[in-house]
């Protein structure tokens, strides 16, 4: 994945550098004429200075590549080089009348002067070489742009670097700010997206809060969320309808069981229908809970647990299993929840323990501040089987009865309460299934003394 900020800074940097270079070129190109002449004067003087050799009483202008290039470029070039009384001249036929006489004895330095007829200019440059003073006068040089640019850059290097750095800093700060603006916008969208409840992804991300560039993305996200929400709703409606429709055949089934002559078989069938019924009820309760068809209220976990266990009392006795409840303290244990759904969840756990805990003699429910634990002393689960158990259609043992739907419904019911189903098991020592609630609160004294009730 490319980083937006890095790409941004890189492309902006390249663009800025290009613009900077073009501006520099234009600036040098459009350099004021005098200044330009002065520069070319300096360039030519330097070329001549390097080409000039003084040996004894002889002054020679050697033919250097730079000088040859200059001569080739400038058809009307002329120059006079003098040192003391020594003198060398080139292109004297082009030379106009000058305001100086040769040999020149003026001060060291270089300057541009007009010729006597005011039609053109020439360059005068004097340098000290040993005891001699080398004077050069040059006219009509056509210095290449590259050479002027080079001397210009060499002479102005510090100021150019300064300007370039300032420019680069501006670009860097600008791109950093822009990148930050973009990433802030993305972060805001991401925060909104994270805040959306995955089980009911509506509410959507407000378009007024995001940068306009991100709007297509946010709109697409919102549309996707909307579709997911519609799909989830459809599924839940289906679940609720299915659970509802199952009741009539279950009732018929229950009625027909009365005609079974074998009492043992009848009892077993009745137990199976009961289990199926509790599963269907749990599905329906879950559907109601997830569709927000019911409101969570403060409910007493202790009361519900005792009632559910009481319901299972006869089946436990039939199966020869001791069913007991242990409680840290007396009194209510209040949680926010939906009574019917919690009952269903708990009934599924207890029913599960009664049917699936092979060889169990005791099933003990424990109420504590965290919630409820159902512990059996049966064979336990094989190592690592706890995790798969809450997936639909997974059972602890391939030979076990039941569709394995129960625990996944229990898990969903707990999730809808902001709690969780925790399963722990030691092979050979039994299994503990706990319903944990987010904030099961301690007994409230006043609630016990409510004598106003009906």
């Amino acid at each position, binding site marked *: 994945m490319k980083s937006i900020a890095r790409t941004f800074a890189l492309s902006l940097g390249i663009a800025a550098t290009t613009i900077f270079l073009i501006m520099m070129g234009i600036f040098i190109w459009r350099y004021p004429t005098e200044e330009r002449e002065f520069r070319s004067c300096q360039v030519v003087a330097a070329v001549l200075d390097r080409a000039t050799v003084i040996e004894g009483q002889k002054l020679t202008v050697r033919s250097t590549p730079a000088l040859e290039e200059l001569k080739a470029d400038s058809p009307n070039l002329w120059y006079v080089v003098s040192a003391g009384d020594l003198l060398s001249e080139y292109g004297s036929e082009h030379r106009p009348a000058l305001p100086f006489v040769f040999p020149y004895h003026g001060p060291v330095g270089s300057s541009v002067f007009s010729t006597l007829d005011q039609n053109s200019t020439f360059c005068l440059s004097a340098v000290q070489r040993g005891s001699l003073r080398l004077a050069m006068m040059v006219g009509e040089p056509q210095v290449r742009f590259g050479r002027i640019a080079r001397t210009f850059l060499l002479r102005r290097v510090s100021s150019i670097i300064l300007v370039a750095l300032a420019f680069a800093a501006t670009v860097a700060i600008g791109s950093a700010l822009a990148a930050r603006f973009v990433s802030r916008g993305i972060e805001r969208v991401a925060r909104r997206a994270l805040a959306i409840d995955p089980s009911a992804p509506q509410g959507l991300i407000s378009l007024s809060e995001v940068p306009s560039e991100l709007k297509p993305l946010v709109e697409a996200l919102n549309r996707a969320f909307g579709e997911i929400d519609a799909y989830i709703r459809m599924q839940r409606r289906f679940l609720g309808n299915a659970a509802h429709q199952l009741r009539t055949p279950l009732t018929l089934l229950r009625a027909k069981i009365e005609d079974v002559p074998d009492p043992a078989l009848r009892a077993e069938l009745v137990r199976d229908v009961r289990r199926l019924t509790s599963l269907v009820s749990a599905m329906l309760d879950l559907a109601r809970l997830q569709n927000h068809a019911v409101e969570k209220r403060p409910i007493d976990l202790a009361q519900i647990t005792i009632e559910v266990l009481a319901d299972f*009392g006869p089946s436990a006795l039939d199966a020869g299993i001791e069913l*007991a409840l242990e409680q840290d303290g007396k009194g209510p244990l209040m949680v926010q929840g939906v009574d019917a759904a919690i009952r269903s969840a708990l009934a599924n756990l207890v029913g599960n323990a009664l049917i699936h805990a092979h060889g169990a003699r005791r099933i003990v429910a424990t109420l504590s501040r965290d919630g409820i634990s159902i512990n059996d002393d049966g064979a336990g689960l094989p190592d690592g089987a706890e995790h798969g158990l809450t997936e639909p259609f997974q059972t602890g043992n391939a030979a076990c009865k039941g569709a394995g739907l129960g625990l996944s419904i229990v898990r969903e019911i707990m999730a809808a309460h902001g709690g969780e189903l925790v399963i722990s098991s030691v092979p050979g020592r039994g299994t503990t299934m706990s319903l944990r609630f987010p904030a099961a609160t301690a007994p409230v004294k006043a609630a016990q003394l409510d004598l106003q009730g009906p």
Partner: protein
Amino acid sequence: MRSLVIEDEPQIGAYVSRLLGQLHGIVDLVGSIADARQALDNFKYDLAIVDRMLPDGDALQVVTTLSQSSERPAIIMLTSKDATEDVVDGLNGGADDYLGKPFEPQELLARVRAVLRRPRLLAPSVLSLGNVELHLGSNEAVVADTKILLRRREALILGALLMRRDRVITRSALIEEIYGFDDEIESNTLEAQVSRLRKKLAELGGDVEIRSMRGIGYILRLATPR
């Protein structure tokens, strides 16, 4: 006694009719609101078992009109709509009881008996299970043909257990039934009384047993499992 069953699923209707037939009487079965109104115009019923969702509407309207008539029958709604709100709607609409589908046949019959005796406010005078009988109001019990006079609390406990035989009565529900408002309840009083009652029944050869379920409550059932 004449009962009306309003149920559109014929097999369930036939089954409910058969169950009610055990209570000695005539049972009429109808499958729609229109038929139900016609039946109610022609006969006087003591009991109506009403399914809610019928092909021609919600039978709650029948229940409401029925409950406002001068000679109203006892009404039990028997339906697969059994969310709390539905039950509240049904009871507020005039039903005497509300039972969700699928139902246990014994539970339906128990509820029918309960709503039928409610207007008379008269509980049956004798409760029994196995060879144990309790004569309500007299603290007198018969265990294996032997008469025995129980203490008042023991009789109350036995009565409560007999009323809910084969079902667990929670400890708190039992305490509510046998202790008055001002009675001091020692933490182990109930246990002591139950175990004394248990001993008395066993000594006389009673074929029922009172099982304690730790932290939950008590259950009375036949000693030898069926």
